[in-house]
Every structure is written in structure tokens, then in C-alpha cells.
């Protein structure tokens, strides 16, 4: 758009900021190539000492005046968390035990200032390998709902986050909600984060797990590990090992081979070797926490 004006000899239009109050206006802007901002907690840190408008961005679309994208609602088969729901709202919502992993993760997203602004949808769309929300949402079997003028589609989270900073959001789409299925029977969940300091810390390793329990036995288990691969991953072999187990002393069921899908790297926070070893400890502690 800028290019064509420049080629035609016209001064390029300055980029603009838009905060529409109607969803259809937002979708139209998005279709015309607008870049999205919501909570701002990833947008601004990526632009310290740099222009706020990226090169070739004609419009930054602020979604925060769209109340229909915010809030938590119980539906027939699932819970619906609006993509613009802030972490503090998730912490404070009266949610069933299934959601403890997400609520615990929400308390670890930055400081309280970040939790007061950052949104769950933004955390997914930013697609950091160390995103605090992703392991918990994987453990909850979450799907993401994407809207465009052309319609609505739903993707399992693992099909949405494709890699570090890579997502399956089309240029005409916005993320509108996270959908979390209700469990079979009683479900409870937990989250464990390991970092090098207490507050405001990017995880070295984190793990979230959710267990569906029927008659004292695990009827379904979902365990995910973050910061040990480009995208947080579920551990199917471990989940199989948990299937059918009684809920006492679960930590012992986690084995090193269950972590085979992880591909940790060396970075400033830790070595890959350490992450591999620590992930097993963290997963064991998580399962111990989830034991009866």
C-alpha cells in the first residue's frame, strides 16, 4: 500500500492507529493488512528505541474496545475465554479445579502490572517458546477461535502455534477466543515454573498438567512442558503411562524417556543438558502435586 503510493509519486500516508468499537470495522481493517495490538505487553517491548510503526505497516489495530472479545463464559460443552481476557481476570475468576494450572500460570506472567494488561490471546499470538500460558492451555486441551470477514474457524492450540514466533493466524484473521472443553469427570490441574529469580522471570523450564479422574483412577491425562522446545509440547508417552493409574505418588511414573519429544537449547538462562534434566524433575514435582 505504501509502496504503491510511493511508486505513484505520492507522499506515503503516515501509518495510523485505530481502535474500532465494532467488530466488523476491526475485521475490515485487519483484512486491509492492519497489525494488531491488544494488551501491549509484547508490542512495546519489541520496539524499545525503535519506531512504534513497523516498516510497511499502514495501520495498527487496537482490539481493546471490543468487549465481545473479553471475559470468561461457561457454555454447554466448554468454557470460552475471550482472547482479550487479561491475566488478572483469569486469576480472579471463580473457575473449577480444572483451571488451576492456568490460574497459577497467570500469576507468573510478569508482574502484576503485566497481568493487569496482558491478554491470553496475545500470549498465544506472540508465540514465545517460554510463553507462560501455553503449557497450561495445552494441558487443558484448548482450541483457539479465529475470526475473519470470511467466517470463523477453530484450531487446536498445537495446530495454531507452529514454532517460535510463528502462528497459523492468517493476515485477515484475529484471534477471538480460547475454548476449553469440560472434562469427563472431575479434573484438577497444576503448574510448576522454574526460573533464576522469584518475580519477573522468563522460565528455564515449566510444566503444566491436568488430570481427569474417574473413580479414583486417571481417565485422561495431559501434561505439557514449556521453554524446552520451540513450542511447548505435550508428552504423549507420559500421558499414556498415567492413563488408568491411581492418583497416589504420581511423580514416580514420569521417566526420562517420556521427555524424548523435547528439544531444549543452550541459552543465557540454562544449558540444554540442564533443561532436559530439570524438565524431568519439574514434571515429577508437578505430578506429585497432582497426586491425591
Amino acid at each position, binding site marked *: 500500500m505504501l509502496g504503491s503510493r510511493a511508486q505513484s509519486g505520492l507522499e506515503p500516508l503516515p501509518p495510523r492507529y485505530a481502535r474500532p468499537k465494532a467488530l466488523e*470495522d476491526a475485521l475490515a481493517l485487519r483484512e486491509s493488512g492492519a497489525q494488531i495490538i491488544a494488551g501491549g505487553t509484547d508490542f512495546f517491548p519489541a520496539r*524499545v528505541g*525503535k519506531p*512504534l510503526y513497523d516498516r510497511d505497516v499502514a495501520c495498527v489495530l487496537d482490539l*481493546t474496545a471490543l468487549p465481545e472479545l473479553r471475559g470468561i463464559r461457561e457454555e454447554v460443552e466448554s468454557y470460552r475465554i475471550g482472547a482479550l481476557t487479561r491475566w488478572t481476570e483469569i486469576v480472579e475468576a471463580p473457575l473449577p479445579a480444572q483451571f488451576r494450572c492456568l490460574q497459577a500460570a497467570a500469576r507468573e506472567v510478569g508482574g502484576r502490572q503485566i497481568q493487569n494488561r496482558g491478554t491470553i490471546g496475545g500470549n498465544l499470538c506472540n508465540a514465545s517458546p517460554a510463553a507462560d500460558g501455553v503449557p497450561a492451555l495445552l494441558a487443558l486441551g484448548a482450541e483457539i477461535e479465529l475470526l475473519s470477514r470470511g467466517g470463523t474457524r477453530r484450531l487446536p492450540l498445537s495446530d495454531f502455534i507452529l514454532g517460535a514466533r510463528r502462528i497459523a493466524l492468517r493476515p485477515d484473521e484475529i484471534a477471538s477466543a480460547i475454548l476449553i472443553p469440560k472434562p469427563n469427570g472431575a479434573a484438577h490441574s497444576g503448574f510448576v515454573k*522454574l526460573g533464576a529469580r*522469584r518475580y519477573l522471570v*522468563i522460565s528455564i523450564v515449566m510444566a503444566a498438567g491436568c488430570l481427569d479422574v474417574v473413580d479414583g483412577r486417571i481417565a485422561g491425562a495431559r501434561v505439557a512442558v514449556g521453554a524446552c522446545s520451540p513450542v511447548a509440547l505435550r508428552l504423549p508417552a507420559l500421558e499414556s503411562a498415567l492413563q488408568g493409574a491411581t492418583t497416589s505418588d504420581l511423580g514416580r511414573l514420569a521417566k526420562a524417556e517420556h521427555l524424548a519429544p523435547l528439544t531444549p537449547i543452550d541459552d543465557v538462562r540454562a544449558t540444554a543438558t540442564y533443561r532436559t534434566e530439570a524438565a524431568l524433575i519439574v514434571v515429577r514435582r508437578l505430578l506429585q502435586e497432582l497426586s491425591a
Partner: protein
Amino acid sequence: MNKLSAAPLSHDAVALTVNGASRVYRGDGLRRLADVLRDEFDLKGTKIGCNAGDCGACTVLMDGAQVCACLVPIGQCEGSAVTTVEGLAGGSRLSDLQRSFLAHGAAQCGICTPGMLVAASDLLARLPKPSRLQVEDALGGVLCRCTGYQKIVEAVLDVAQPAEIVQAGHVGASTAKVDGPAKLTGAERYGADGTPADALYVRAIRSPHAHARFTLGDLDAFVTSRPGLVRALTARDVPFNAYGIYPNIKDQPVLADGMARYRGDPVAAFVGSREAIEAIRDEDVPVTYETLPAIIGIDAAKAALPIHAGKNGNILADGGVTCGDVESAFGSASHVAEVEYETSFVEHAYIEPEAGWAERKGDTLEVHVSTQNPFQHRDDLAQILNLPKEAVRLIASAVGGGFGGKLDLNVHPLAALAAWLCDRPVAYVYTRPESMAASTKRHPAHVKAKAACDGAGRLTAFWSHADLDTGAYASWGPTVANRVPVHAPGPYVVPHARTRGTAYFTNCPPSGAFRGFGVPQSAIASEAAMDALADALGMDWLEFRRLNALRAGDRTVTGQVLEDSVGIVETIDAVESHWRDWNNAATDFNTSSPRVKRGVGIACSWYGIGNTSLSNPSEMKIGVAPDGRITLYCGAVDIGQGSNTILTQIAADALGLAASEIRLVMGDTARTLDAGKTSASRQTFVTGKACELAALDLKAKLAKLTDRSALRNLPVDNHGDVLTGYGRFDPPTTPLDENGQGVPYACYGFATQVALVEVDLDLGTTKVLKIAAAHDVGKAVNPQQVEGQIHGGTAQGIGLALMEEYIPGRTENLHDYLIPTFGDMPEMICRIVEAPTKHGPHGAKGVGEPALISTAPAIFGGIYRAAGVRVTKIPVLPHRLRAAIRAREAKR
């Protein structure tokens, strides 16, 4: 799209409420709320520390909830109520919370204080009687680099029953900070807060390569193509393009001339409107780099061609101390311990990035800047601009933390040059990444040490060698290389010693001054050697140290006989009960805890107050106006450590006044005398003495008057005063000879710290549970501030020990570079020991740097006792500790 064009999508006007008043903002809705508050609404109390949500300094309330104003686009504030620090109380009145902060000494430099106050207000509105943990959780998103958080937590917990705000000004009183109210209301003006509205801005373009030849393209064309840019600056525009701390080593260019020697070296700069400057993308600037092999690390430096011509082996400086016959002493020793440690670059991480502005006034230049070093910076700027010293006036702003990092020139040369050439006020405010890339660091040190004792446990010999990575330019490298060998053995009697420190140039950020000047690094090694000797003897670690500790009358390794003021034994005594109790408790704990272990470490330290064997005088003057008003003309800059209050107390005590009766002018080269640098823990000791002498001089002059009304009849000087007291003090030292023998310092601060730590053997994580810190300060002029220094120094020691590692290009922000948060501090017990020096005011010495030195070695001792391992690469990150534990467990 037709429908869209009809919809009012662009938010040119945002209506909001700020501190209860309706405001309308017109402009780009994407602008950060923090910028709008500061620049459009002139609410400078909201501080910008990182613009990334990492530090919380800009915390404001938005509809009652704390948010980082740097992360909120102003467009989202439509219809919102925003409260800043200025809105917490009315006018200059203080709220209960602010009063509690003042009473507790919860603000030091004050740059994080607005964020802390706002975050606490959010909490107290939700939970009027919070627990300690709730306070930490609520304030955990705000970083403080000065206080160690203890007094902030206490101030919030005590808000319902506020402690007394001490107004008494005598020496020994915990007088409330004289600049406290300004820091608590947001009125204080830091480096970025006083910029004139019509100022231009300047910004450097910095090399992204550690070592590169570069060629500048057509920068003038670049300027012309961008509306709002005024001009480019290159090395050719700098009249004298070199500066440095040492008069004979001016090796750092204001703008590099064709060769970038570290990642962050400035290669060119642009002057223009703020918008135009901020719109520059580095990659658009026509600079061509030809990268060269980068010399990273000391081993590489030793082998490489010189980074600076003539500096063979890349050696900047080395220093050493030799006494006695070391070889024989080691040969006849009963026990010998050898250790080796490597430390990392450490970033000062003051929450206020470097900032200032300059204005040309005819043939003179006025520079307002956040600095620890106003007089030297004036002299350096005069030299750079080829102006007489008298033509440059430097006025220090309030300083939002320094710790040694603001002793070097930073924003000032380019702001000054631009203002001079453009004849417009020009400001320069570093972003956080720029601050971290450009500023000096703590020297990484590779320390080898060997200590020996006899069968009774008496130290007989000590040998050490510290190789120091001094980075691309000299900065304070020689100071560090000289301080390390003098202090290397620690505060013990050592009859035979040979110690050495060598600083090497590398293509890394210049290593400079950082709280302790290399002594913290070297103490890690020497204290580990003491632990090992005690273990070899089967002796208690504390007893071993007490046996060997210096006492009055003893001789140091430089041959100095310490006549008085040697409080090391008293500091050991002061923590002894904690040492014993915590060891017993840790042993009990460990019997029932197989994989989480506790251990207790102890470390002693000493630190020479003032410059090493160099004259470092302070001059002070105190004036009295015809109406009797007293003004302290104080060239010493308060960087948060509290010299404004300490010096006011010393003057008030001598003159028999209350602190509030003394007006203060700080760090203005045109109005104050040179009180030297705020470094080397020297302001209380050196400037304090000069201040006492000035006050006594004035008192004597006043005593000659028949009565105060006689003041009105005296001639008025250009400061508006009729009488002036003058004082000067230069601590008595002697040069060190070729064996490092002499009197490097007039007195020393001493300390002992005990740390109780808990190690998770499976994860390699360490939590510091308790620290008992006993410090000999000679005389605590203000005990509350002494405690504040100990808390803050200890916090930095914890960071050095467990998390801080600066890696150029990788950790240039405050989320990859970690400093301790509220939740990383232990329970702290402070014990103040007063072994007075005859030289200092009321016997006072210094505490700023001593506060930090013992912490890391005490923690490492604790880790050793808990986990049975010593990690030799510092910081002890979880993966390093876990690797050491794994290696030990594999051997079993």
C-alpha cells in the same frame, strides 16, 4: 471500505482523567501513556526505566489497577482514570504511605519510588492490612537497585502505624532524607526530567559488531532526506576526540574514527527533533562495517595483536604487592589451599538510564546531567570541546542510581557537542538497551589464589593473581588493577604475600568502576581459600577468621600499620550467635531433608576508603545569608546513598541547627567547590570531614559577631551570602613503591557477613534464607541510611553471586539480564560496629562498597556446606550448580 471511512477510527482525541482532572490528548493514539504523561501533561514523576515492562518504574494506576505506563497506548486510556505519583496526595503534602516511606528510609535514589508507591497504593486499596508475602507479590513487578527492598516492605506493612519521621539533625540520628519529600512526591528532577520544551535530541548510532572497521556514507544526505533532522555528527566534528578517567590515558573516543572496538561503540550521531530522532532505524543509516576478528576474553587478549597501539599483550595496567618471603613461607606451611574463580561482566542496572541536556549560552556551555563525577566531567567536556574550563558549567541532576556506572562520561559529550554546534538546547536520554550496551561494567576476573597457614591456624602466606577483562577502553581499569592486589588477602594478618592484578584490553564493553572496584571478585577467591584452610585444620570457619583478623597495631601486606579503627573482630563477634544458631539449625534440617540442603557460610572483608594512594581532596563551603539562612554548597553528588542528608547532618551538628534549617546546593560547578567523585565510599569520610571543617569555620566566624542582626550590615557575595565557612580534607596516604608498599588509604571499612542458604540438589537452585551483616563504619552518622546501604549492597552481592551475567548483544535488557527482585532477598539482620577513625568526621568511615563485598563469598560458603561443591564460574546459575552436584554425585 466505504463504511470504514465513515467510522471515526482514528483516535486523534483521547479524553481521560489524570489525577482527578479531565484531560484531552490529541495525537497519535499509539504513543505510550508514559510519554504522554511526561511530555504532554508535564507529570515527570512517572519514570521511564526500560520501556519494556521489565522494571516497573513507570507504574501508574489505570482505573485503580497498577499498569506499566510504558506498555499502554494512550488510545486505550479513553474514558479511563489515571493516577500518577503526583496524584497520591495533594500538592506537597504526603500521604500516609509516603510518610511511611520517608520514616523508613524506603527511598534511596528515588527513581523506583513512584512506581513502588503506586503499586503499593493498588495493593492497599485491595488489602488494607497485607501480609509480607502479599506486599512482595503486589510490588514484585517493580525493580529497585538501591534498597534491597527491605525498607520498602516495612514501609508498606507499617502504613497503618507509621514510624516517626526523624527531623533531628545531629550526627547519629536517623534523620529522614532531606531530599526525601521531593523523591516521594515525584517532584525530584533526574537527568531526563529537566529538558527544556524546545530542546533538540541527539542519538548515537552504535556499532553492532565487537570489532569492525567502518565507513560512513553520505550522512548529510540522510539528514536532508528526513524532515526534523538537523545534522549528523562524526568523529571529525569533535575538537578533541578522546577522554578517559586518567589524565594520561585518554583513549576513548566521543565518536569512533573508523574503528569500532566494542559492540556499542558510537560511530556517528544525529541531532534533530525528538520524533525525527526516534524515527531513525539503525539499519537505514549508511554505515558500512568490515568486521574484524573480535578479541573476547582474557586468553584471547594475551595472544592477540594490540587493540590500542603500543599496548603489547593488550595489557592496560598491572599492579602488585610483595611483602616477606612468599616462597619460603609456602614451603614451610602446614596447610596450603589453592582456589580459582572466574567471574562475569556485571551491569550496574541503575533504574535511571543515563540522561542529560546541554545548552550553549554565548561562549559558555551549561550541561545538566545525571553524574557521579561533576568536576571531572566538566574538565573533560572542556577538553573535548577545546574550551576553557570556566566556559563549561556542569550541574548535576538528581541521580537515579550510579554504583560507579555514572563516573564515566556517557550522554554528555554528544549533548554538549550538539548544543555547541547547533546553538540549541540538546538532550540525550539513553534507552535501556543503549544504556546496557554503551555503559561500563564490572570487570570479569579470573582469580587464582593460594593461602597457607601453620599448624595452629595462623596465616603465613598468601599469593594471588587476578586477570581482569577491562574491555575496549581504559576507564577505571588501572584503579581496579591496583585495588585488587592491595585487598586480595582480605582483612587478615599475612606476613608473606605476593599479589597481582592485571587488566587486559578486549573487544568487550569498557569495564569501569562498580561498587568495590574489583575487590568483590577477588574476595570470592580469598574467602574460599580461608574456608579450605580452616577445613584442613578442622577448625571452625569463624574461629579461623577471628584468629587471623587484623587488629589495631597490625601491619597490612602493604606495610601499613593500622593504628586505630580496625573493627573486623567486633564484626565477627557481632554475627557469631547467628553463625552458631544457623549452623545448628541447618544440621537439624538436613537430617530430615534428603534432596534440599541448607548450609551456612561466612565471609570477612575490608575496603580502603578513598582513592588508592592518590590525593583525593574534598572542599566544602557553607554560607550564611543576611537573613541568617545557611546554605551548604556541596560539590558531592548524592546518587541515592544519602550524602545530601549525611553532609547536612554533619553541618547541622557542628552549627547546632536542625537539618531543615540548612539549604543545599548540590553538584553545580559554578556554585559549589570540588568535593571529588562519589566513588570509593569516600563522601561521608572525605567530604564529611571537609564539611565538618567548613561548618566549624563558619561557626567560629559567627561567634565573632555581636549578634545575628549584624549579618545584615555585612557585604553580600555573589552567592548572596555574607559569611562563608570553608573546609578541605585530603586523606593522608602515601604512594605505593615498586613492591606495593606504602599507605594506600587513611582508613578501612570492615565487615563480616553470614549467609544461610538452601540448595535444591536436583535443580541446582539456591535460595538465600538469611543474612546477618555486621559492618564497621567508624561512626554511623545516620544508622538508618547505613542499614539501607547494607541492604542494597547485599542485594547486589546476591545478584553477583547467583544471577547477574552480562553478555554483550544478548542481555541488553532487564528481562534477560536479571537483578534480584523483592522475592530474592533473605531475612536480613544488620549489626553496626563503630570503631572510629581519627581522620573522619566523628570517626566515620564509609559503607557503600563494603556493603557488597562479603555477600557473594558468604553465599558460596553456604552452598559448599549445603551441597558439598564449589562452582568456580560465577554467577552460580542453576545449571552450573547442578552440573557440579552431578559431577560430585557421579564420583561417589
